[in-house]
């Protein structure tokens, strides 16, 4: 029987280990397009998280009822329903934010994070685990969009979350709020993430090697002593 990971691990893995942006490289279209400011990034991530959580719960609930042949079609209908709900609610309750995010809210339907987690996780796991997985991935997406949006807003407009951070004498780098700035920032952050992961792996391999060598030496000494 497959060993189940703990509930906390189910949530935490989405933050870094399988972070949708930096590790799974999913949802790149909204990531690149809306992160001209931190607030846009937060709003997009929250909308995506809402859809991700509810679609994962529903898909997990009905996973045994949906025939395999039409599962993707059924998942798309479920996801599209929640996206349309988000779109209508944002237009009704947060019209300014809805306008700022423009066509990217309806495009959550085709966000690979949602369909990816539905297919890879929610369709095979219990409701609670699917909820934790969706929440973890949503939080991971929120963190990456917030970091990207903050960097681009800071360098491109001199502000963070609308508050002036850099002095007025600072000349904003217009490229940072253009698509080129999104690619540059994302590429550099991914490089940094890969560098950190590789370094961490190297350190753990080195620690294991040291431990093995010490154990071998100890054994040899014991054998020699005996």
């Amino acid at each position, binding site marked *: 029987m497959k060993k189940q990971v703990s509930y906390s691990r189910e949530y935490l893995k989405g933050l870094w280990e399988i972070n949708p942006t930096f590790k799974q490289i999913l949802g790149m279209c909204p990531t690149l397009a809306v992160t*001209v400011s931190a607030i846009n990034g937060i709003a997009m991530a929250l909308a995506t998280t809402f859809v991700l959580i509810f679609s994962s719960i529903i898909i997990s609930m009905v996973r045994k009822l949906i025939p395999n042949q039409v599962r993707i079609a059924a998942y798309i209908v479920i996801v599209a*329903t929640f996206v349309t709900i988000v779109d209508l609610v944002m237009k009704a309750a947060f019209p300014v934010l809805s306008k700022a995010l423009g066509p990217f809210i309806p495009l959550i339907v085709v966000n690979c994070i949602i369909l990816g987690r539905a297919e890879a996780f929610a369709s095979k796991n219990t409701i609670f685990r699917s909820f934790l997985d969706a929440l973890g991935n949503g939080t991971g997406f929120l963190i990456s969009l917030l970091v990207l949006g903050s960097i681009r807003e800071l360098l491109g407009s001199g502000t963070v979350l609308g508050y002036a951070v850099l002095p007025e004498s600072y000349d904003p780098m217009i490229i940072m709020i253009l698509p080129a700035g999104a690619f540059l920032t994302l590429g550099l952050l991914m490089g940094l993430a890969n560098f950190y992961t590789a370094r961490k792996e190297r350190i753990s391999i080195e620690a294991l090697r040291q431990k093995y060598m010490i154990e071998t030496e100890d054994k040899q000494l014991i054998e020699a002593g005996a």
Partner: protein
Amino acid sequence: MNKAVHILLTLMVTGIIAGGVLALVNIWAEPRIAANQKRETEEAIYLVQKNGKSYEEIKTVKGELFKVFDGQKNPVGYSFVYEGNGFQGKIRLMIGIEPGLDKVTSIEILEQTETPGLGTKVTEHPYKDQYNGLTIGTGIEWVKGKKPVSRMKYRRLQEQRYHQNQLRPL
């Protein structure tokens, strides 16, 4: 159960539930969205006619056309909504013109789907202010912009002659 029937039933039930839920949400959202649009339009009427304090809608003309008055009920000009193609989709504008129908007072973007970042700068003041005080009739001069949307907007302003023909100077 027959496989084909199972598939059909699954898709049908999924569709019916999804449609039902969306209908319920739409019942809640529709009046609020309409109210938001109305409020935005009203705000824009006064944004393009700075001295305006009240307005009345002219219903004899096709489209949304408003006659704007100051505090003493003197007419200060017209505000009207116009829609046309932008770079990526429809752009809805509120345009203000002076009582003599000879000059644009200013413009306000009601809706646009331009590229986030540079494209959405059409909603910002330095861009919109380029249209303040432009002359109509003798031909609006080409306004330099950063994207083709400028050309589109220029065309929109020229197409206002359609409306002008149905208006008289105040």
